């Protein structure tokens, strides 16, 4: 395979990951072409790219998921490769294939690896063959409680009865006692039928209080596969990660080594190329781990791995996709210190993480030594309602976990976001929790009760009220000094949607057009 570095890469994504990839391209002397929906015309990735193309209306089904439009733009813009980021089309084997068919390089794994890992049953079979531990159980559907009892006798209690067509926690029943098997089976089957139109269920070992630990791997097209250690992603809300750290604070060294080796085997089993992540359930009680799935793309939380290993994963993706062999070997990579990532979401942590899209009236990111913020926003921008509510990722490094936590809390307190509620108060409460500080947590750590108990009422000091009144007083004075100042000068309404200044000016123009 010849090495041919890219000249111009299409970034088929938006937000912070588009910015991240554009920066990686620029650092390697590659031009980056952005695409943007109508909601993202002012976004940072559009401003940073060498060229940017509108791609359609705000809903992702009409823009960032339009494979045909993306390919057309790639051709028109003279790109020689496509980077999909994460989400959207990043794990679409069909899109990966179409990119290659169009004569462009897909900066990601081969379509075959994507589809193998995309099927729950195929992945489980492949992993078993490769000697990678999977959650004990039988993925073949069962219909009777006798069958269920037989599997339970084999793998032991507790178990989970799961819908084969399932997802999102529907059609799932935990069984802790043999007497509950029949009832749980019936309940799971009925729920599966109602939710997915398919009553097939299977039985799997239930790992109580598991941790979500994943291994970053990197493979080239020449058969070299290395791992870049683990990330603990057990702090989750709605089964989605919000805080990640590396190393995992409770993983014994021998288990880490075994897990990393298993991940490398998993990647080899599907002839993986590029950056990927093998996710495991880890049971600290028994020190056992089980393959969950492989994410065949760059992960949101990749920066913490970059920070402790010094390997730039986007650079690595670009080099490996261009045909370069890995330029380092496993024994030269080490985990140095401790890294933590907080996903700063436009979500109201005090209201059960309810999405809170809206304008960033004030926005300033924290900085300082060993603080990294990956974001795609700037002050004045609106967090759109159409996409993932992530504003930014705050990533910090410290020589040890305690220092990293303290640094992260410091950066969170510096983070200036005015206009919308965010998940920042949650992180501050988390870092004060004695259990978290000792590294004791699992995927069910965040409960409504925990939030209720730990996220106190925000304090409203008197100077806030005084500053608010002074700010209003000055705004009123400005409005008086500037006759015909027009929209927004001194708004008595409160009835309109109150978008950015740009939007208000836009509306103003529109109205003029209507009247004349």
């Amino acid at each position, binding site marked *: 395979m010849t090495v041919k570095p890219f000249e111009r890469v299409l970034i088929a994504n938006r937000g912070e990951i588009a910015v991240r990839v554009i920066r990686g391209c620029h650092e390697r002397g590659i031009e980056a072409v952005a695409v943007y929906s109508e909601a993202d015309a002012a976004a940072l990735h559009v401003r940073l790219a060498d060229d940017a193309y509108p791609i359609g209306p705000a809903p992702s089904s009409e823009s960032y998921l339009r494979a045909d439009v993306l390919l057309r733009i790639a051709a028109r813009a003279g790109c020689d490769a496509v980077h999909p980021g994460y989400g959207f089309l990043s794990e679409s084997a069909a899109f990966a294939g179409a990119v290659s068919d169009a004569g462009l390089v897909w900066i990601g794994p081969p379509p075959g690896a994507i589809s193998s890992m995309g099927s729950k049953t195929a992945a489980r079979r492949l992993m078993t063959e490769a000697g990678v531990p999977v959650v004990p159980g039988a993925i073949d559907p069962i219909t009777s409680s006798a069958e269920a009892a037989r599997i339970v006798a084999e793998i032991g209690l507790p178990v989970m009865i799961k819908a084969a067509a399932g997802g999102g926690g529907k059609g799932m029943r935990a069984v802790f006692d043999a007497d509950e098997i029949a009832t749980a089976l019936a309940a799971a089957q009925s729920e599966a039928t109602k939710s997915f139109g398919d009553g097939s269920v299977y039985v799997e070992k239930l790992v109580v209080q598991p941790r979500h630990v994943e291994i970053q791997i990197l493979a080239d097209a020449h058969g070299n596969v290395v791992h870049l250690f683990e990330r603990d992603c057990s702090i989750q809300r709605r089964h989605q990660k919000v805080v990640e750290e590396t190393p995992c604070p409770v993983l014994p060294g021998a288990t880490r080594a075994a897990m990393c080796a298993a991940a490398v085997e998993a990647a080899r089993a599907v002839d993986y190329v590029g950056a990927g992540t093998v996710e495991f359930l880890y049971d600290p009680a028994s020190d056992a781990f089980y393959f969950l799935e492989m994410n065949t793309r760059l992960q949101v939380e990749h920066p913490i791995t970059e920070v402790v290993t010094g390997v730039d994963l986007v650079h690595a993706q670009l080099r490996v996709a261009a045909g370069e062999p890995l330029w380092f070997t496993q024994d030269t990579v080490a985990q140095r210190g401790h890294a933590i990532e907080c996903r700063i979401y436009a979500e*109201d942590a005090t209201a059960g993480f309810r999405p*809170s899209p809206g304008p960033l*009236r*004030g926005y*300033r990111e924290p900085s300082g030594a060993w603080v990294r913020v990956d974001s795609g926003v700037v*002050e*004045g921008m609106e967090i759109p309602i159409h996409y993932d509510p992530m504003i930014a990722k705050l990533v910090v490094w410290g020589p040890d976990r305690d220092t990293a936590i303290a640094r992260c809390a410091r950066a*969170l*307190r510096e*983070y*200036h*976001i*005015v*206009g*919308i*509620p*965010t998940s*920042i*108060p949650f*992180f*501050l409460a988390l870092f004060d929790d004695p259990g978290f500080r000792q590294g004791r947590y699992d995927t069910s750590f965040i409960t409504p009760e925990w939030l209720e108990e730990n996220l106190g*009422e*925000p*304090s*409203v*000091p*008197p*100077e*806030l*009220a*005084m*500053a*608010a*009144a*002074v*700010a*209003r*007083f000055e*705004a*009123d004075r400005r*409005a*008086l000094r500037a*006759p*015909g100042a*027009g*929209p*927004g*000068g*001194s*708004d*008595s*309404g*409160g*009835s*309109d949607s*109150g978008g950015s200044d740009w939007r208000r000016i836009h509306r*103003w123009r529109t*109205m*003029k057009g209507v*009247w004349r």
Partner: protein
Amino acid sequence: MSRYEVQLGAHAAVVDVRLHPEGGWWVALDGADPVHLRGGAVGAAEWRLDGDGQHHSVAVHVDGERLSVQSGGHGLSGTVVDPRDRALDALSTDAHGEIVTPMPGAVVRVLVAAGAEVTAGQVLVVVEAMKMENEFKAPAAGVVEAVHVQAGSSVDAGALLVSVRTEEGA
């Protein structure tokens, strides 16, 4: 003096503000003795206030009556209301956009002329009464049909100030 009702979640305060002759403002919180504060806006959504040997840097943004703040990492929203706006809104406008003063006073400023396009909430006329400046605003977007007063003139309670042909009325 201007009086504002500040509301943030469960918190409410009444704040009086007027200019201090030496710069800055006299600010009184909930009827307490006014304190002399100095400072100003720092960036788009930050204010620096100094007074009584104290220094405060607060994350505050005001857009009309809409208030956004950040406190202890919490992003909070609320309102800063001039109670006179509400009173005037209730008293001074009818459906056709006739702006009437409910109190006698002196017209200090006229900010629009006939034919001008105005937006909802845009200040049209300022009338001073009892040492208080009262802003009369357009009730809705529209076009100014006529201005019935001029700066310096005195008005009686019930006097017609401005006629606005509003979008709704048109």
